[in-house]
């Protein structure tokens, strides 16, 4: 399968002054394939935010290449094709809303790529429907809650029908409910076939994904399925990352009861494992 995004030996550094540079990304390579749900995780200052801005050409690598749908992000003439293919939702809900009416804001991107008015209406309807914000379409966005604003921002990106949406810390300013609203929309879009990349420092959010890429000091230190990643608890702790509560509980129970699996991530799995072990145990007794 052709990847949507491919990074080849990407390095990037910020210039502080004439003589000093800070190296942020160091020889990063990976590919994102259609339909994947990928979490890029790292603590603040690990380089994950700089990395995410490379995914749609907001930044271009100092050395190495980023390919989006076969276009090199350094090729300025392909900039619009790249941004049409990879949409991005940002951290601060207020700073990405341009218009003063919800539907007008969703229309902003479509206007930019010259979609005719008749088609726009349908695309806006569909996008607002997916994020469940249809009833707010005529409202001014500044009266909405954080989670609702983020859903409007998602609709604005979704309406442009990209192949992939990058969420750059999009839940970090939200409360628990706002976060759950956004996570649900992400999951839903993924099952509808959208490629999702979420950049986060929350392990519990990363656990939702099908694949986790761990970034530390501008390098990729792990890349794999959540289950495999959470096996390396010591490494994660060292990287100042949280381990999901379920995973920690499972580990502790495992120490006391060896046949209790320690490789659990989700609450559902924990409950099932408890059922299984307790059945087995009561079987032993009887």
């Amino acid at each position, binding site marked *: 399968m052709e990847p949507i995004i491919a990074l080849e030996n990407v390095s990037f550094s910020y210039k502080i002054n004439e003589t000093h540079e800070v190296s942020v990304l160091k020889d990063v390579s990976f590919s994102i394939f259609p339909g994947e749900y990928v979490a890029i995780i790292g603590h603040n200052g690990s380089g994950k935010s700089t990395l995410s801005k490379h995914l749609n050409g907001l930044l271009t690598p100092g050395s190495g290449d980023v390919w989006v749908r076969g276009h090199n992000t350094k090729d300025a003439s392909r900039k619009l094709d790249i941004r049409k293919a990879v949409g991005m939702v940002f951290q601060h809900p207020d700073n990405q809303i341009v218009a003063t009416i919800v539907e007008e804001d969703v229309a902003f991107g479509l206007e930019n790529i010259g979609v005719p008015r008749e088609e726009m209406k349908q695309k806006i309807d569909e996008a607002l429907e997916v994020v469940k914000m249809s009833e707010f379409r005529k409202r001014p966005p500044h009266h909405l809650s954080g989670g609702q604003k983020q859903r409007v921002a998602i609709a604005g990106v979704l309406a442009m029908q990209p192949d992939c949406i990058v969420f750059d810390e999009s839940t970090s300013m939200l*409360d628990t409910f*706002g976060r759950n609203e956004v996570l649900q929309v992400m999951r839903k879009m993924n099952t509808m076939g959208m490629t999702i990349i979420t950049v986060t*420092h929350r392990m519990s959010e990363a656990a939702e994904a099908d694949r986790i890429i761990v970034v530390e000091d501008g390098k990729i230190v792990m890349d794999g399925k959540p289950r495999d990643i959470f096996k390396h608890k010591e490494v994660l702790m060292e990287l*100042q990352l949280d381990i999901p509560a*379920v995973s920690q*509980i499972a580990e*502790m129970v495992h120490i006391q009861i060896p046949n209790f699996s320690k490789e659990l991530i989700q609450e559902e799995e924990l*409950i099932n494992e*408890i059922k299984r072990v307790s059945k087995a145990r009561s079987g032993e007794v009887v």
Partner: protein
Amino acid sequence: MRGKPIIEIENLFHTYMKGTPMEHVALKGTNMVVNEGECIAIIGHTGSGKSTLIQHFNGLIRPDSGKVIIDGIDLSKKRIDIKALRRNVGLVFQNPEDQIFEKLIGDDISYGPFKLGLPIKEVRERVKWAMNMVGLNFEEMKDRQTFALSGGQKRKVALAGILALKPKILVLDEPTAGLDPKSRNELLDKIKSLNKIENLTVIFVSHNMEEVAYLADRVYVMANGKDVLSGTPIDIFTDKEKLQRYQIGTPETVQALYRLKDLGYNVDTSAFTISEAADEIIKVLTNGEVENHGK
């Protein structure tokens, strides 16, 4: 341990933008009592009135009607010593790192004490103490540039800027929002020691239930401009019906234990910490205390 009431709020009302088309009632008869030395968590949705309430604590907002007495100062009186009030109540806003304006860390933290008109020696002592309290080394950090700090460190500087006022009551609005786990845990420990060792009365707003369970002696739940529920974290997190009614999240551990209880396992749902929860599960599995399997 628990002292006399230091904050008393009775039937408090507040309306924003009164007399304009944007008029909005934020508080509709809130009650609250905080005793000296307590650590209180306030939880509730965005828009439930939490921020409006805590801004009454240091007189940034005066009561429209109702009683607000903070450390003996009655805020419904027209003339009050607002400076004394703000000295005694340190209010730390959300994302306090935004308020840093001096180039050097030491200068920024000393802004408050200088405004109090303290002699330079005393200011220095206070800055040293405050930096120590948040875990910043005075000698090493005081002359560092503020803009080059990480998010977590900036927040510590901002917190130190408030602590340098030597308040009796510390009020924090979502102190750990946006911090990574390491900085978050560090900050939580600092707040805990301020409360338990330095004996500050601490009131904090939070969306993170693990944090509430870890820090708070008592919890107030706000909804629609009113206090709808209060009690110890155990009281709150074990009242399943109310949790659902007010859409309060629970710590992950409690959530899993509830599901086990629903399945008929004999578990104690008030086990908040991860090791307590693990112990509960081990207990269930080793004693085979299962009243009925599944449903």
